[in-house]
């Protein structure tokens, strides 16, 4: 009896952990190739790995156990989370939505426009910036959606084209319409439009923040899946309301903690991360607990079955594009309105690449809205470690981009793990 338990556990793990193993394996491949590149160029790969860990706040001399560094990683993770959400929702509907890049540009431009050129009441301003940026992203996502539905244009083609159209459009807007004091920067966001910067020094801050995030996740999980409710309607609405209350309450609680214990050290983790995580959880609830989300997943899994079931495929495609656009637009806002510029550079250096790396984040997170969160934190930490690669080893921080590319390439291979298993069996 006792001896059976581990084997049962193992078989359970084998059944359910394969996606996780694939992700871990892709990351492993990426890191090994990165190490090999360092080795070929006569650097010590071990030093490289230590530097990479420093990006996550490990092996670092800081009086708060490297939590400052982890906060930087989270700051990088926020836009990744959102662009990954764009790709993941597309994938759930069977679409290859690689248009997040362009939607980030458009969302960022909209955010900078509202934040820098309108004087709105305190409180409402941040809200307006966020909403307008999300809507602008969704509006840009509407173009490939309609082209796909009406004219059958493949979303990869329209995505590539629209990314570049957005690139030049936003570049033009940034230089000629959004620029403020400096010609190369868009106008600074007014103080009322700025997201609050999370304190970077106090240990309490980050512990509070992490525990709040965990509490929100746990609370939502318990409320929505562990309480027995037989009918939707009033009770579901009540649950959603409570969910909103938890998020809002945690924000207020955090702001309080931040004000009293945190010091602003020019860090760049802003409160957008709450909205990002809430959006991930919200999309999860939408996809797995609501009927339109179920339709989207059915269209993605089996379009024929969906058609026979009378589901409108066009509507599912449209919805998944719009949700993706909302997320990518928010990513744009989070990149445009952040310290220390509170605006974006007219070369769009602040935006470029987030949409494409988001694909990798989504794939490592198995295209699951919740899986994306840890995956984005991993990619954010990796991105953050570029500074340490530069400082400790003297190599360019762009190596991180190479490693991210390798991880994406490795994730493209669905059979990598299977192939390896087969090889091992053959060797036996």
């Amino acid at each position, binding site marked *: 009896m006792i001896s059976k338990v581990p084997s049962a556990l193992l078989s359970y793990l084998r059944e359910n952990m394969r996606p996780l193993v694939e992700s871990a394996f892709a990351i492993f491949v990426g890191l090994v190739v990165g190490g090999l590149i360092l080795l070929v160029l006569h650097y010590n790969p071990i030093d490289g790995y230590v530097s990479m860990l420093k990006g996550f706040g490990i092996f670092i001399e800081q009086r708060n156990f490297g939590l400052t560094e982890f906060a930087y990683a989270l700051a990088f993770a926020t836009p990744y989370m959102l662009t990954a959400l764009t790709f993941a929702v597309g994938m759930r509907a069977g679409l290859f939505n690689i248009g997040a890049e362009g939607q980030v540009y458009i969302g960022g431009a909209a955010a900078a426009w509202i934040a820098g050129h309108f004087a709105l009441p305190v409180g409402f301003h941040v809200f307006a910036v966020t909403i307008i940026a999300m809507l602008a992203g969704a509006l840009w996502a509407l173009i490939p959606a309609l082209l796909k539905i009406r004219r059958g244009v493949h979303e*990869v083609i329209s995505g590539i084209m629209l990314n570049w159209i957005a690139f030049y459009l936003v570049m033009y807007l940034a230089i000629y319409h959004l620029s403020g004091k400096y010609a190369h920067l868009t106008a600074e966001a007014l103080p009322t439009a700025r997201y609050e910067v999370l304190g970077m020094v106090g240990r309490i801050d980050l512990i509070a923040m992490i525990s709040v995030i965990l509490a929100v996740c746990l609370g939502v999980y318990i409320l929505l899946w562990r309480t027995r409710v037989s009918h939707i309607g009033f009770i579901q609405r009540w649950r959603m309301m409570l969910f909103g209350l938890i998020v809002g309450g945690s924000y207020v609680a955090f702001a309080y903690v931040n004000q009293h214990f945190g010091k602003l050290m020019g860090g760049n983790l802003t409160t957008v991360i709450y909205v990002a995580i809430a959006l991930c959880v919200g999309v999860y609830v939408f996809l797995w607990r609501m009927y339109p989300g179920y339709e989207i997943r059915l269209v993605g899994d089996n379009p024929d079955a969906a058609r026979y079931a009378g589901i409108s495929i066009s509507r599912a495609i449209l919805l998944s594009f719009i949700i993706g656009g909302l997320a990518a637009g928010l990513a744009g806002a989070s990149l445009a309105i952040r310290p220390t510029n509170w605006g974006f550079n007219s070369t769009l250096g602040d935006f470029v690449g987030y949409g494409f790396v988001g694909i990798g984040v989504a794939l490592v997170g198995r295209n699951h809205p919740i899986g994306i969160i840890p995956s984005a934190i991993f990619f954010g930490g990796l991105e953050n470690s570029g500074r340490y690669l530069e400082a400790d080893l003297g190599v360019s921080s762009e190596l991180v*981009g190479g490693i991210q590319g390798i991880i994406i390439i490795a994730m493209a291979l669905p*059979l990598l793990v299977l192939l390896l298993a087969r090889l091992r069996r053959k060797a036996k």
Partner: protein
Amino acid sequence: MTIARIHIPRRVLVFTICLVVIVVLFYLLEHVGISTKEVARGALFVMTPLTLAAVGECINEKAGLVNIGLEGIFLLTAFFGVYGAVHLGSGYGGLLVGSLVGALIGFIFGIMSVYGRANQVVAGMGINVFAGGMLLFLMMTIWHATSYEVRPEFMISKISTPLGLLSPIIFVAIAIAILFHIILHRTFLGIKIRAAGEKPEAVDVGGKRVDRIRMFTCILGGGLAGLGGAFFSLGWLGTVVKDISAGRGYIALACVVFAGLEPLYALAAAFIFGFVEALASTVGIMPAAHAFPFLGYFLLMVPYIVPLVVVAIFIGRKPFPKASGRPYIRE
């Protein structure tokens, strides 16, 4: 009495209109006072890497593989072309190294997508992300600089023509486009390639190996794109910088879409977009342009808008092979 109706394919119509517009623009430009020779010369230079990559990608997509990693191949081969040229001591050696590196990337992509059944769009995106990071990383570790000037003796020497100094690679690119158009439509190899994309089962039943055909097109496409990438640094710009190709890998994809996977049309598309880009840079420095700055940016967008509109309005989903982007699994 019935009148014989002349059937003009839509694509021919679109391309004829574009070329007529270009001729008219040339005529107008001469009147405005812009040197059309300069614009045409610029167009031919922009056209070359686009053509090389687009022709390779056309053949690749005809065989049923979609490699959107062209931008990444451009970036890496622009570096390795110069690296090879410096080590071999000749520009042509550099071009060779560039196309070999491109072919190697194509080979890896082929192994992954043909035998590993990888998701081709994801793999291509991965190549782009990888190359975008590695270019600067390699430059920093090997040359310790973020930009590198190619010494004149390693550059491909230009030949003088009525249009001014042109690189011989331009003519090679035109020849390659014509050659591959003939191969694709007039030879048995071309039939095999097209069948591998349209109905791989038939190729398999006919006793030909689908995987080998696809591997061949992958390597070929990668090699051609690699030649284009090496041309950036060795035949044209003379420097290596971050983002040297500036999104032209994606314009090459736009050419492929615009051309409906036909190499000869891809040549025309590359010329049209090259013309637009040359025009954008010429118009951008004109004093009159300051009054209306959007024009320059709009011209930069044109290579992306035109294929999108053409695909949406005229062509739709038709030109792509049925098995495009799907791995072939033998039963």
